[in-house]
């Protein structure tokens, strides 16, 4: 219990004094996770819309696989990305291992199925409402997808936030592909693992509280920027 209080007060001081190292690893956490989130959304959301409007043979199979991959173990993703990016692996010449880019790649793989699955659920419901209207207007496939994505944007925000939540708290994969290098690939979660290893529970907890605070702040900011939960809106 003493560690918990020490952690809280240490977190408070670290934030209050704008501790340079803390700022750096927090910024890197955000940079990696938001980068991964943007790329993942650009892949997952059109995919979800396509699955909603288009009927093709393997559609059910793709949806089932996406749902199953929501539970993809990060440490396995990390290991696979590691083997691919290693100098002895197929993409070794790119020299991407142990860089923030490698961490972004791993996180994209982890959160794409999650975002696509949640987005697809809401787009499917909306498609039932819109189906007759859009068919009667004889619009193209592309226009159908665009309409769905725009009108379901608030539900899609939830999908994106779920992806953000999974990515920012992730440690298994980015530890393996990033290597937790000081001033290069160290982020909040890997720093917490490091300090726990050193037996400095207070500092580890302090970093943990900062991480939770950061996640809450980003979520609030996204809601505020997109003006959800306001009167007269849904």
């Amino acid at each position: 219990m003493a560690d918990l209080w020490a952690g809280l007060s240490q977190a408070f001081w670290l934030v209050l004094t704008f501790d340079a190292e803390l700022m750096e690893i927090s910024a890197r956490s955000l940079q990696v996770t938001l980068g991964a989130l943007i790329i993942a959304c650009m892949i997952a959301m059109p995919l979800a819309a396509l699955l909603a409007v288009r009927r093709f043979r393997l559609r059910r199979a793709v949806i089932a696989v996406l749902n199953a991959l929501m539970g993809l173990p990060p440490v396995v993703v990390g290991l696979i990305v590691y083997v691919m990016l290693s100098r002895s692996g197929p993409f070794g010449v790119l020299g991407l291992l142990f860089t923030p880019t490698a961490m972004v790649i791993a996180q994209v793989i982890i959160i794409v199925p999650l975002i696509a699955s949640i987005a697809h659920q809401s787009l499917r419901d909306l498609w039932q409402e819109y189906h007759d209207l859009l068919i009667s207007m004889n619009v193209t496939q592309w226009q159908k997808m665009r309409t769905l994505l725009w009108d379901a944007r608030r539900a899609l925000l939830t999908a994106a936030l779920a992806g953000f939540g999974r990515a920012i708290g992730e440690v298994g994969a980015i530890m393996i592909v990033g290597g937790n290098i000081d001033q290069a690939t160290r982020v909040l979660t890997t720093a917490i693992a490091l300090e726990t290893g050193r037996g400095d529970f207070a500092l580890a907890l302090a970093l943990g509280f900062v991480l939770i605070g950061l996640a809450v702040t980003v979520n609030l900011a996204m809601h505020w920027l997109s003006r959800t939960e306001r009167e007269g809106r849904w």
Partner: protein
Amino acid sequence: MMRVIATCFVLTIAGIANATEVMRMAVTTSFHNSGLAEVLLPEIKADLDLEVQLLVVGTGQALKLGRSGDVDAILVHSKAAEEAFVADGFGTHRREIMYNDFVLIGPSDDPAGVAKAASAAEALQKIATMQTLFVSRGDDSGTHKKELSLWASAGQEVDSFTGWYRAVGAGMGAALNTASAMNAYILSDRASWLNFGNKGDLALLFSGDAVLFNQYAYLPVNPARHPHAKQELAAQLEDWLTSDRAKGLINGYTVDENALFVFNAR
């Protein structure tokens, strides 16, 4: 909203493009937990204008990183594995830098009585006889390999051990945390133990036997095998690590007034 996203995106790209001249070295957890890295790295940066990025892993994984060419050099402590690494052509040579020692940690009331043992082998025999809880790294690290060789020299068969022998498969710090929570015996390097912040009821019980000697060696990755390995930077770092400047810093590094490492490069 779009501007925030765009800024983050640009920052990500900038992070990728900002890959300056740096070298990567895999080091053991025990070396990093000692805190010596934090003393040496800024000096290396000041003297050589070289940024050494550390990958902190077990010796087994460090050698693996060297074999696959993902680092430019390694600094580890497991002589047999290092010699095999050089013999297989993955490293150009092996250069001894410094040593510290291993110590036996256990509950302060010492139920197995290892503090009175005459040798490390006898201390382990006492633990095996009493079957008191013992935490093993179990991760193929240098410390783990050392522990296994000590059990062998004590005439004990690790595979035949029952529930009292707990192989946790984790780094030094994590294994010490486990030992602290279970109040168990554990073999640790002195540096990690002195820097460990969660000692609980554990105490240093046995040290000083010559077999507990722990030699660290520096191995540059062979550019013949991995052409992208930064041979020149690795050579520069080797010269620095074996210089009088490094000698002063390594021998002068203390925790709680205990000297941790002895420089012995030739």
